[in-house]
């Protein structure tokens, strides 16, 4: 049985071109880029080439890119830098639907005496920039708002927010882990201060990330030690992965428009097909402003883990915001923040696509999913009590 991988917001396959670019630096060219000799120097040059490739993806300058170990480290670095460089300011602003890399750090800082404001979202997962204005005050050290949500794919108005904050001189970081490589990002047009990228979400390996730090932004390193990354991130570089991230960024930039169109078509086919064949399915998130690869669909009155494990029997990999998949007992904080009703929140499935998915993958999901949904509804005590008609955005979508 072949695997149909539709969980690309969790991680992506390392692109073969990326692997090819990395291999010499795992084998033949093993010099330390900090060494003075030519053997290390050639590795250093390759890292700088990767820096240019990553910078080009977001229209930044190469010296504005700091390589880190992952998206979480980049997020933590951005927030902790603000806390260190603005010690008098004790207020943080973020959203209720951030990734735990930001959210849990804010909870942690909250316990350390910082005031934290968590901006709400509406039922489509949208953020109202006006709510930010009300939350801001002179004590605000940093605003950290994600570019696109990992669960629903909903894109936040980061450009508008950045412009507002720029006028007020407030430090702004965005976690663009899910957006980078999937939609155009331009830090020249968007006056934000810091932006997070994670390699394994765009076909580079796991364990490599980057943080864009705009020139002139006051910065304090999170990992302290040697002088690597111009003293902004100590530690010997993860050379091969940095080179892989560079190659992945180049591939993403080169093929961006084509992939947006390809993935959007596949995603819409999948979504329409599921909504048409599975009664009481609803899309979670704003369908007007979403990543092209993400569909978050709730199958009401059944539970997400059960759906996932049935899909697993067909080799289909997806993800769920249901509590039972995570070891936690609470369903997705994102869907709860959106006010998704309990009839739907437990049965949410996230399908996230990549360039390696095909129409045949979509055909298979559309073939098996109605049967799975029917079987689980037959099992459910709520099966008989399901009201007529559909909820969510089904009608709006079609």
């Amino acid at each position: 049985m072949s695997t149909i991988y539709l969980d690309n917001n969790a991680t992506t396959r390392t692109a073969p071109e990326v692997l090819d670019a990395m291999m010499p630096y795992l084998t033949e060219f093993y010099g330390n880029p900090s060494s003075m000799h030519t053997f290390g120097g050639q590795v250093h040059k390759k890292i700088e080439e990767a820096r240019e490739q990553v910078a080009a993806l977001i229209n930044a300058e190469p010296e504005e890119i700091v390589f880190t170990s992952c998206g979480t480290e980049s997020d933590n670095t951005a927030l902790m830098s603000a806390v260190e460089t603005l010690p008098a300011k004790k207020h943080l602003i973020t959203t209720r639907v951030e990734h735990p890399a930001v959210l849990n750090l804010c909870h942690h800082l909250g316990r350390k005496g910082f005031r934290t404001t968590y901006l709400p979202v509406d039922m489509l997962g949208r953020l109202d920039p006006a709510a930010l204005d009300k939350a801001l005050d002179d004590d605000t050290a940093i605003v950290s708002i994600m570019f696109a949500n990992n669960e629903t794919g909903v894109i936040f108005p980061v450009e508008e927010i950045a412009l507002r904050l720029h006028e007020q001189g407030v430090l702004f970081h965005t976690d663009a882990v899910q957006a980078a490589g999937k939609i155009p990002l331009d830090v020249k047009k968007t006056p934000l201060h810091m932006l997070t990228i994670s390699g394994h979400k765009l076909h580079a390996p796991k364990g490599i990330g980057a943080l864009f730090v705009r020139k002139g932004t006051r910065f304090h390193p999170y990992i302290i030690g040697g002088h690597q990354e111009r003293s902004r991130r100590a530690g010997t570089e993860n050379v091969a992965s940095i080179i892989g991230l560079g190659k992945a960024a180049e591939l993403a930039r080169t093929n961006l428009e084509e992939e947006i169109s390809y993935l959007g078509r596949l995603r819409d086919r999948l979504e329409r097909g599921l909504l048409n064949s599975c009664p009481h399915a609803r899309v979670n998130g704003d369908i007007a402003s979403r990543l092209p690869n993400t569909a978050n669909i709730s199958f009401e009155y059944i539970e997400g883990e059960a759906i996932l494990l049935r899909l697993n029997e067909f080799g289909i990999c997806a993800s769920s915001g249901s509590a039972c998949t995570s070891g936690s007992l609470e369903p997705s904080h994102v869907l709860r923040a959106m006010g998704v009703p309990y009839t739907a929140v437990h049965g949410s499935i996230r399908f996230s696509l990549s360039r390696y998915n095909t129409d045949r993958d979509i055909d298979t999901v559309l073939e098996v999913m109605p049967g799975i949904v029917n079987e689980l509804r037959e099992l459910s005590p709520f099966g008989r009590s399901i009201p007529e008609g559909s909820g969510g955005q089904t009608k709006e979508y079609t």
Partner: protein
Amino acid sequence: MWDYTDKVKEAFLRPKNVGEIENADAVGEVGSIVCGDALKLYLRIDKATEKILDARFQTFGCASAIASSSALTELIRGKTLDEALAVTNQDIADFLGGLPAQKMHCSVMGREALEAAIANYRGAPIRKTDAERVVCKCFDVTEEKIRRVAMDNHLTTVDEVTNFTKAGGGCGECKPEIENILAAIWSAQPPLKPLKPKGMTNLQKIALIQEVIERDIRPLLQADNGDVEIVDIDGNRVVVALRGICSGCSMSEVTLKSIQDKLRELVSDDIVIQESR
């Protein structure tokens, strides 16, 4: 992904006794869509003998919840109501070859549905009343339930209580209160040693004997350059061969007796050890 046993997977993918019983003699309903799992148990009961002729279920929930429901119906079919009431949530978990710790609440839900159904049949009031104090507001768990499940399952930590009841698994505000409840229970009565599994099938008993020998006996013998191997298991008779330094040792009778004692302690009182000759 959860580390489910093959039995859990099988019972989830091909659950037995699914559906309603029309005009059932008893119905037990627990859980809710808000909490994320719910079970409705239907019983057909022979009124003269109080024997459960048929048991069926409908479950909203994860793989463990569905598998636990299926296991429950298999365990209670053919039993009298009193015999069925002796089935514990641990019996349900054991029937499935175990559940992940965080999923034990699914087996508790099975046991609760059984109690509710039998109470329904006997016209007894259901256990939870408005008068009971809710400790965990996120999952609507009462103090009485925490006490009962903690005592039934010898739970001594808040995490264990959360795994078995969900209490404390939401906002977490009730965790100090759960800790107080546990302290009150076990200060009055120390936790009992877990009882041996009851009502095992032959396959379950064989699996447990193998597990105990691998986990609790072989490492000790191997540490002294000895070993033991299972040759056969026939009912309560476990035939073993001593290996290494244990083979031909003058103390082999003592070794065999200690193996038998351990198996009697952890598996069943009627285990008899024999050495293969």
